[in-house]
């Protein structure tokens, strides 16, 4: 049934620290590696080693430049995946009941056996978190590694999503965001964790921690080298023209 549960016992999700993510793509590749053999298998690729590669991935890592009001930019690496929202329309618009939110832990999943591949859920998601698998004919999305986190055949330290296990800087944490005393909830409270597009109203469970404000004043930019002024003698004029031509400022 695509009606949302009244509430979920737990709210399992991720906390992503934008201050320390280095944009290495380890979480994205680890996600692809696990999920192309797990619950979401296959995650098909087209022309993966050619000139026009494409494929279904559940985690995408953007890099943004943020320019402050006083100038001075900083680079923020920004992993983007399903946020396992509390009130998402991607579940309610599904005509078949394939898209659903689990009452016990809040994970949003797609049943690959009943999905008809109409893509309407991807239209309903403002986060672009769902990707269509052209070979499999069904929609793919982050499962929060539902086939790892409860998997008792894995060592206990491996019972976290593949992206969390892979992150070399510890920028990703997994836990119950419905429990105010959990490590992830405390981290969100301490660091001022926020929702993406809170104004949209889907109530994402995943939280992002903001980049810390840089307290070290940026060094002033070095003054540009003086350029020979046009005019003067013919020889000076000639070298001024060469200088302009070589530094790509036209002749």
């Amino acid at each position: 049934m695509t009606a949302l549960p009244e509430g979920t016992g737990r709210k399992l999700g991720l906390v992503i620290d934008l201050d320390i993510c280095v944009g290495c793509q380890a979480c994205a590749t680890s996600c692809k590696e696990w999920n192309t053999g797990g619950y979401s298998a296959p995650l098909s690729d087209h022309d993966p080693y050619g000139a026009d590669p494409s494929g279904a991935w559940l985690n995408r890592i953007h890099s943004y430049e943020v320019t402050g009001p006083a100038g001075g930019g900083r680079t923020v690496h920004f992993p983007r995946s399903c946020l396992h929202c509390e009130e998402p329309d991607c579940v309610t618009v599904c005509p078949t009941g394939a898209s659903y939110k689990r009452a016990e832990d809040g994970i949003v999943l797609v049943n690959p056996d009943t999905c008809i591949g109409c893509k309407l859920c991807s239209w309903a998601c403002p986060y672009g978190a769902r990707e269509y698998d052209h070979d499999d004919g069904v929609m793919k999305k982050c499962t929060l590694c539902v086939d790892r986190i409860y998997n008792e055949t894995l060592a206990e330290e491996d019972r976290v999503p593949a992206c969390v296990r892979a992150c070399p800087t510890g920028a990703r944490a997994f836990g119950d965001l419905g429990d105010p005393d959990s490590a992830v909830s405390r981290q969100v409270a301490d660091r001022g964790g926020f929702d993406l597009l809170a104004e949209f109203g889907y109530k994402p469970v995943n939280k992002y921690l903001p980049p810390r404000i840089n307290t070290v004043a940026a060094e002033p930019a070095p003054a540009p080298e003086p350029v020979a002024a046009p005019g003067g003698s013919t020889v000076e004029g000639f070298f001024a023209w060469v200088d302009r031509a070589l530094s790509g400022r036209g002749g």
Partner: protein
Amino acid sequence: MHPAYSVILFTTASGAGYGMLFWLGLAAALGAGPGPGWTGIAALTLALALVTLGLLSSTFHLGHPERAWRALSQWRTSWLSREGVLAVATYLPAGLWWLAWVTGLWAGAVPLLAGLAALGAVATVWSTAMIYASLRTVRQWHRGDVGPVYLALAAATGALGLAPFAAAGPAAGPGWVALAGLAALAVAAALKWRYWAGIDADPGRFTAEQATGLGALGRVRPLDPPHTQPNFVMREMGYSVARRHALTLRRGVMLGLFALPGALVALALALGAAWPLIPALPLAAAGVLTERWLFFAEAEHVSQLYYGRARA
């Protein structure tokens, strides 16, 4: 949004079919207009054929068309599911009505069956529109006038399709169906004009700063993309038509879908002749296909804030 040809054909063909079914059903329920003669049967058959063509075409964009029957199950929450249920439900009275006319039996039941079919046609077109209008992610769709535009265009194209049959029937001349078509064309043109003015005046509520939550630090622009080639989200949700082309196409719609067919129908009424109704059909068909293409191509999706769009 990517304008998928199967969905454009689906919404326009089924819209025209349901429009014909509506006017024909209204006429049969009230005992007016094309009756159980060959013109009535041919019109009813064409209406059902257009509806069926549209519904079949809508399954072409599915990853698993063989599972389409599952879409009838979630009518409590999903407008797509409601549309499926209503489309199937409308076939029941419409099919029995067709049988009644073809066999000449159950003449007493025809007004009821035709009335139910007309009602089903309105409800199905409304739910088609609501599939789009209910999506908060696309501001060009999440509007109160999207439903009325779909209804008015279905009524207009349906009346244009029915008018030649009505004119060929025993009650000679273009008659009330052509008048209804003229009125529906005028209403649809006014609604569409207002729609375009509305989406042009709306810059979008959401920004890249809200999408990334980085607004406190400053202005956000993409530096390195997450993938070298477009992915599904960019191809499906990132399609956008150049403003210049959109304006040209809007003028084409105003001319081809509204002004010229309207003038031809008016000419038919003035002359009391049926022939101007024929050239109105290809003009309106091309016009409504362009209108529906623009409905998708001009729609901007919030997810594109992550891919460089500043507002959506």
